[in-house]
């Protein structure tokens, strides 16, 4: 056995952005330890995942063409451990997962002990009580106008026919993800990392990832520079309203920096004191039963669980509390946010956009100045006698065949082929 690939395939909203950021910034340290994190840009594995799954993503897919094959080629060429991580890999179909594993050197048709490449699948998981609202919020941050109630209805549809529903279960249904990615791997090569309950120190989750990715022995810079912060109830409601109003006129290339990054991530996620998104109390039981079946399956299959698998059961309300009217009344419904709170969030949003507009105006002014100065310099150079003389010579040469040959030779020797002398 000479090669090992650690493939972190999800799930979304389980601290994956942080892990990928740490891995990307510590590439050199990892390389020195014989671990390859093959990425020239922080989102390299995201693009590779888009390419593998042939997923359109607001135009980004054009940058992804061939990205998976390039990534796999680097992994195959590395005689050590390679780490690949992106949460949307959870969405891969059986065929796509099979193709990915094969491209990394995995052989499904030989016994594990005879395989030259040892593939480990890592899946980080969090309870549905937190994942359901987080997935809806993620939808909203990707231009969705679907209400929370509609979202909840769709994901509970047993047929799973809607795009929202099929995506949700594709990236969240833990036993099914592991079926697709790891049904032919030994269970000890499947690592399930559980996200600890809210309020646990952040280091706890990193330590679990560190163990799953076999990084405990390394001294890594763990400063967070990228994260995928969450929004409160009025902030999410505001973004959804903006989507409804702006989707037809704002192209994805502008939506990403202005709405998702500037408004959602940099501005609205910084607001404190807003009600947090949660699962409606009357649905705790339904999702709790789903979680219980997953926990049973994980235990039954004998995977390497890092953390405590019972954390997947989340902070479900006791059955009697879930049916209590008081619980339902105290729950903040993002489809009916308090207008005053949304207005407060909107003021912050307008201020942020105004500041950004002012910054861009300043930048525009600076570029105008720069352009004007360039034009003035160009005009000055045209007026110089030496320029006029060279221009005359070029024109004379260009009018005859020998002259043109001379010009071509001169430009070839000079190393560029512009018409300016």
């Amino acid at each position, binding site marked *: 056995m000479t090669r090992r690939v650690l493939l972190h395939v999800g799930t979304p909203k389980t601290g994956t952005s942080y892990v990928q950021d740490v891995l990307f910034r510590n590439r050199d340290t990892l390389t020195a330890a014989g671990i390859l994190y093959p990425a020239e840009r922080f989102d390299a594995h995201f693009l590779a995942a888009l390419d593998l799954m042939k997923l359109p993503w607001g135009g980004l897919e054009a940058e992804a063409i061939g990205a998976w094959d390039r990534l796999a080629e680097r992994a195959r060429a590395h005689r050590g451990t390679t780490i690949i991580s992106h949460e949307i890999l959870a969405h891969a*179909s059986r*065929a796509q997962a099979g193709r990915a594993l094969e491209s990394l050197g995995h052989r499904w*048709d030989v016994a594990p002990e005879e395989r030259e490449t040892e593939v480990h699948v890592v899946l980080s998981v969090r309870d549905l009580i937190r994942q359901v609202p987080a997935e809806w919020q993620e939808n909203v941050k990707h231009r969705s106008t679907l209400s929370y109630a509609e979202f909840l209805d769709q994901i509970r549809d047993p*047929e799973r026919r809607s795009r929202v529903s*099929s995506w949700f279960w*594709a990236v969240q249904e833990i036993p099914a993800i592991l079926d697709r990615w790891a049904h032919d791997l030994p269970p000890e090569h499947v690592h399930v990392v559980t996200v600890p309950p809210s309020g646990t120190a952040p280091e706890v989750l990193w330590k679990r990832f560190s163990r799953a990715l076999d990084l405990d022995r390394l001294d890594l810079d763990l400063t967070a520079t990228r994260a995928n912060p969450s929004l409160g109830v009025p902030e999410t409601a505001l973004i959804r309203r903006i989507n409804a109003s702006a989707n037809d006129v704002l192209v994805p290339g502008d939506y990403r920096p202005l709405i998702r990054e500037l408004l959602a991530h940099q501005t609205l996620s910084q607001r404190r004191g807003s009600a947090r998104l949660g699962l409606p109390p009357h649905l705790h039981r339904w999702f709790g039963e789903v979680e219980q079946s997953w926990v049973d399956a994980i235990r039954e299959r004998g995977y390497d669980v890092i953390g405590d698998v019972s954390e997947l059961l989340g902070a479900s309300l006791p059955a009697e509390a879930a049916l209590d009217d008081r619980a339902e009344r105290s729950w903040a419904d993002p489809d009916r946010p308090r207008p005053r709170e949304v207005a407060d969030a909107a003021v912050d949003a307008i201020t942020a956009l105004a500041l950004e507009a002012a910054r861009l105006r300043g930048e525009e002014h600076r570029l105008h100045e720069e352009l004007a100065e360039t034009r003035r310099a160009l005009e000055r150079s045209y007026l110089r006698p030496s320029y006029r003389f060279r221009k005359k010579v070029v024109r004379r040469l260009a009018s005859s065949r020998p002259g043109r040959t001379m010009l071509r030779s001169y430009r070839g020797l000079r190393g560029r082929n512009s018409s300016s002398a």
Partner: protein
Amino acid sequence: MAQADPGRAWGWVAALRSGSTTPWSQWPPDAAPAPALDRDLPGAQQLELLRRVNLASAAPRPDLAERILAVGATGRGRPDLELPGTSTSRRWGPEPTDPTDLGAAELLRFVGMLLAEDLAVSGHRELAEEASGAVTSSRAAATLPARARRRLRRRAPGHRLVGDPWLVDPLRQVMLAQGHPLGGSRSAVVVIGTDLVTMLADTYTARAFDDGVAPWHRWLRTGPGDRTLPPRIDLAHVARHWQEEAGHRRVVVVTEPRLATDVLPLRSSAVPDPDQARPSADAVDLARRVAAALGLLVPRQERRALLRGVLLPRLLTDNAQHPAPPLTVPEARTSWVVRQAEQMRDDLLEAGYAVVGDPEALVPRTTDRRGAVPDSSGVLDLAIRLLLTGPGRDHRKAEVEG
């Protein structure tokens, strides 16, 4: 339901590879099992698509069968579905599905990628062959001494062609091929349009053969076709814009495409008949699906060239053999379109632009309604015909070896 048995399903896969058209639901429970040929069984969608291709094919196509079984869907949607009776412990994932229950729209998610692969693999060769032909003809044109040169030297003001993109783009190509300057500060602005239903369909068609676009109904409901007209075919707005840029006297509005040659330095015989170059409603829908998949395989600039230079001729050839109606707006939208067209006609006449053709031609005649909206079954039939007449393994092999 039969006992869970992947070997039986692999036996069905082997039969489909050999051209079988038997549905899974009629596959004998005691049929001989076959060994697994891959890590996982193909999805119900791929298997049903292969069966439909076998139904339409005169003989087994092993090369195409391999590609169909390996293809993935484009974009978000239902994952690869399992066959009923192939898993013993089906507790997670979507319900297993009888392949014959799958609709055409679901199968089209897979066909789009296959046709896009065809274009990405063999389309470049066809484009290159076409380009070499174009070089020959442009050389021939250059040897017409003097015509092109005189024309260029004459300092003619040139023409700027704007309006319906499906009408304007071919005219631009002919103008350029014949050496006529396009654009320029003193050029005449020729605004070309036709009846508004056709212009809406043309705008959508141009998008479908460019970057891809939402389905026709959704585009009309939520896209540029909703409430306001797409900017390029709002002829009154276009004319007003160019009046401000170039002056009122330089703007000419053509309301009947066949009369465009009256104001352009072209012979009518040199201009392609727009009706002949208009794909059917189903073909437009297929093009948008292929465009979406092709965007995942080739850079954007190549996508348009492949769609218009390779896919469009294939679709038009198919339409000659299997005639299908062109795209039109659903009946419920017609009255809105007529009102918009009447407003456009009135605005143009009121502004006093030079108009070539009958201004009434902008208003669709509701009594003369022809055309259709895309139908998934028709689109799938068309897609399967293209798959079967597309480049096969030999072509692909030649591509690799070449």
